[in-house]
């Protein structure tokens, strides 16, 4: 049985589908696993659709991202509750172990700028992965979604001052980790 799209459904799709990438990036920032991020976004969109009447105004993005965030943190809790969570510190250490394994790092970095850039990207991914979700989410909301501190504050349900200090902390962390990783890899320092 197939029902014709209701006006509500059409409205929701028109408003929400364009933010699917943003929703996915936020979910991935918090969960750091693509299948989990997909599940979370799907779940969040269903919840948003059912609660569409609660949306005030037409700016769906912050509201939608709030729901995505809530779903993601609930999933994180479930993971911990299920005992199959891998602590980020453990991931960080195991990754470091892999990275320092001579078998895997024996090849010399290519002198080409592209290769250096790729190497930098890899280090960055590692450094971002090492952040805790609360820092990763503000980085993603700021750098990728280019939201204002006020908007970010609404989404994470915290004062603007908290957004400011978390971003400062997140960036300082990222820089420290990048420097440490580059130093370890004997690569160029971030200048």
């Amino acid at each position, binding site marked *: *049985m*197939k*029902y014709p799209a*209701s006006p509500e*459904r059409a409205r*929701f*799709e028109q408003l929400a*589908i364009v933010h*699917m*990438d943003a*929703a*996915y*990036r936020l979910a*991935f*920032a918090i969960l750091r696993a*693509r299948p989990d991020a*997909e599940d979370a*976004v*799907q779940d969040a*969109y*269903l919840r948003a*659709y*059912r609660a569409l009447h609660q949306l005030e105004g037409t700016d769906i993005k912050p509201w939608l991202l709030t729901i995505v965030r809530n779903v993601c943190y609930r999933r994180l809790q479930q993971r911990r509750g299920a005992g199959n969570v891998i602590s980020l510190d453990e991931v960080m250490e195991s990754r470091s172990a892999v990275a320092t394994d001579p078998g895997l790092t024996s090849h010399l970095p290519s002198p080409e700028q592209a290769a250096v850039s790729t190497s*930098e*990207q890899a280090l*960055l*991914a590692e450094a*971002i992965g090492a952040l805790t979700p609360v820092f990763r989410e503000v*980085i*993603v909301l*700021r*750098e*990728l979604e280019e939201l*204002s*501190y006020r908007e970010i504050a609404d989404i994470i349900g915290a004062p603007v001052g908290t957004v*400011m*200090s978390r*971003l*400062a902390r*997140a*960036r*300082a962390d*990222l*820089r420290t980790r*990048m*420097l440490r990783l580059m130093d370890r890899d004997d690569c160029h320092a*971030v*200048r």
Partner: protein
Amino acid sequence: MQCDDICDMLAAYQDDELSRDQRQAVTLHLESCRACSEVLTDNRRISGLVRRDADMSAPPTLRGRIGKSLDRADLEAASGKSADSWKVGRGTRFSARGETLGLARWIAALAAVCLVSILATWQVMGTAIHTDGIARDVLNAHLRSLLQDSPVQVATSDQHTVRPWFAGRSDFAPLVKDLSADGFALVGGRLDYVADRRVSALVYKRRLHLVNVFMWAAAAANDSAPVASTRNGYSLLTWNQNGATYWAVSDLNLEELRTLQRLL
């Protein structure tokens, strides 16, 4: 201003989220502090990398998945079924009860619609079948009368002879009119059996055509307008008048039957 104080403001400075005064203070500090300037340069570069690196999009299959899950939600909403277990909370339980109530209401509505539909069909079909059955009986009685040596048991054009003949033979004393002046000559009367009952039949003759007019006590007292039909090429007309049900049947055309009906 010390570097420690600047540290927390550096990110907001980079994002242009500081007040004018704060912004000026940080700018002033950066001019004199190389360490903080370097941190800001590094952070800007890292931000650029993050933007470039992590600019991922959702997998193309995700939209389809979302569409399907919304389809399911639409279906569930349409069938009033409680979608999935929304964990805990008083409000949640209340709304779950609401959905159960909605389901019950929906089923009740469906049942009512079915019942009404069945009754209406039964009523219409029943009436139609009943009427159809009578029409068949009436036509058969008419045809049978034509097969006999005489279509009447009492042959007379005298209405005052016909009417007393029915007394004691039928529970219904028909109004007998001689309509010879109008082209309908009274042939006589007869008893017949139509619609599971004994009925009175008057036979009129118009030119070479015979007309059987059956009549019996009506179930309903109110008069009704004549309803015409044709069956096997014969014309039939039925109406209720003065507490009697009339059926006129003939190989005459319907217009002439209507004329007779008006005269009776």
